[in-house]
């Protein structure tokens, strides 16, 4: 038998913007076992519900993660609204959906850049982030924030968007769609890309299901798990189909995200065409009494906020289960049997978001 050696990967690693630590047990170049260590970003923010009122806590919920920020706040307020039985104005639902899809676009482009960077494909990195700035500009001009928007509140949203601005956004998306097409052609159909990605890090659909994979990690393995189909926000009134690929390898996961960007653009366009007039905010009195599992689809997959209140201003419990957290067991399985040189690519192919996972 070959001698086993353990190679630490992270927490400070050039390919990772975030600290994740893996102990890789190697036999020659082959990874035979993986022990993940987390906790470098653990803040313990769930316990802050004891100190912040449920209306103020939206700001904390949004700062669980700076990439998925908007959808975290949306999930949280949605849970509170469910417990309190609030019917929020329809325009607010649509606006939340639009901003949520904008977040998905910015997150996928961000991932595309980092992923290309991990393979040394610098020009795709730069181009993806160049396109991402257009999205951030739209987010900033409509909400006021680039990465942390702070626009969701219990009972609606804080800002309305003028119809002229919505038209302008539509035009911007048309341009973006065109540029994305070009970028995707370079990225997905490039020969060396295929060499690096096809057949690397395979996850069968059965494994993905049993290990609890969600989001593009699951959809790349042929599972159509997409929480947007439950119809939260305005998704009940929008036509869309989840993007599913059957390869199960890194390439399939990339393809899912690349195609999802077009789905997102389509959803935003439908929303802008259908958005009704009216108020975007309602008055909220009282405090939540009850419990609810609020679910939404983040760029990385299903996120659950479990909220429990007892009729007081401070919640009893707020528990967040983020997509990356449940994608850790699939990641461990993916890495077993791969080559050491492929580890960065496989880790990034599940799009880990450590800030989310550890809270």
């Amino acid at each position, binding site marked *: 038998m070959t001698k086993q050696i353990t190679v630490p990967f992270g927490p400070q690693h050039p390919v990772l913007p975030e600290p994740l630590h893996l102990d890789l047990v190697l036999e020659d170049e082959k990874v035979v076992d993986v022990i993940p260590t987390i906790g470098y970003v653990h803040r313990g923010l769930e316990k802050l519900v004891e100190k912040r009122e449920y209306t103020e806590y939206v700001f*904390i919920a949004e700062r669980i993660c700076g990439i998925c920020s908007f959808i975290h706040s949306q999930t949280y307020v949605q849970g509170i609204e469910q417990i309190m039985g609030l019917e929020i104005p329809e325009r607010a639902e649509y606006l939340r959906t639009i901003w949520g899809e904008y977040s998905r676009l910015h997150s996928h482009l961000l991932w595309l850049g980092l992923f290309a960077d991990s393979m040394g494909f610098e020009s795709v990195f730069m181009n993806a982030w160049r396109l991402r700035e257009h999205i951030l500009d739209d987010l900033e001009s409509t909400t006021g924030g680039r990465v942390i928007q702070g626009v969701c509140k219990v009972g609606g949203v804080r800002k309305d968007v003028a119809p002229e601005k919505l038209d302008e956004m539509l035009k911007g998306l048309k341009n973006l769609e065109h540029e994305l097409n070009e970028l995707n052609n370079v990225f997905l159909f490039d020969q060396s890309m295929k060499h690096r990605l096809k057949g690397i890090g395979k996850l069968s659909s059965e494994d993905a299901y049993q290990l609890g994979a969600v989001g593009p990690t699951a959809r790349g393995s042929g599972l159509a798990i997409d929480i947007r189909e439950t119809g939260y926000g305005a998704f009940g009134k929008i036509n869309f189909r989840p993007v599913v690929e059957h390869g199960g390898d890194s390439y399939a996961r990339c393809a899912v995200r690349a195609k999802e960007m077009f789905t997102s653009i389509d959803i935003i366009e439908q929303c802008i065409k259908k958005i009704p007039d009216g108020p975007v905010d309602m008055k909220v009195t009282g405090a939540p009494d009850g419990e609810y599992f609020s679910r939404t689809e983040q760029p990385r997959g299903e996120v659950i906020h479990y909220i429990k209140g007892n009729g007081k201003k401070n919640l009893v419990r707020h528990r967040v289960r983020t997509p990356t957290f449940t994608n850790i067991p699939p990641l461990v399985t993916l890495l077993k049997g791969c080559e050491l040189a492929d580890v960065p690519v496989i880790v990034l192919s599940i799009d880990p978001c450590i800030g989310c996972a550890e809270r």
Partner: protein
Amino acid sequence: MTYLAKSPWIIHYDASSCNGCDIEILACLTPMYDVERFGIINTGNPKHADIFVVTGSINEANREVIQNIYNQMPDPKVVVAVGICACSGGVFRECYNVAGGIDKLIPVDVYVPGCAARPESIIDGIVTALGILEEKRTKNVHSPQVTDNGRAEHPKRHAKGGAE
């Protein structure tokens, strides 16, 4: 201005940040803001770096990592704390696992406020750091080796009940 200040290399570490400031730092490197035109290069190796950019606050697991990176960097070196969490703990200052700003552990030269810090202010902070770097070089300042004496200043906490 010497060659050092014309092309400073930075190393970025995400302490317990929410990613908001981290992606803004990365945004600085990409075409819209493009700090490489100032010669600023992001490196992954502490021993290559002149400027240490930290986002997020200190927690129990990462204090060792921050110290290590700081101690491994050669003199002269400058520390930039990006974002309100790195400056003081921010909205998370009351969390049980957050010990506070980076200055509780290593000496900080420049504080960049904001949640998340905007790319413009990050660039401004790094340019300010260049002046300090130059000053440290001419005065031949030796930075101290940091050990975990921050732990002594760690705010006292009291826990009642529960499991041992």
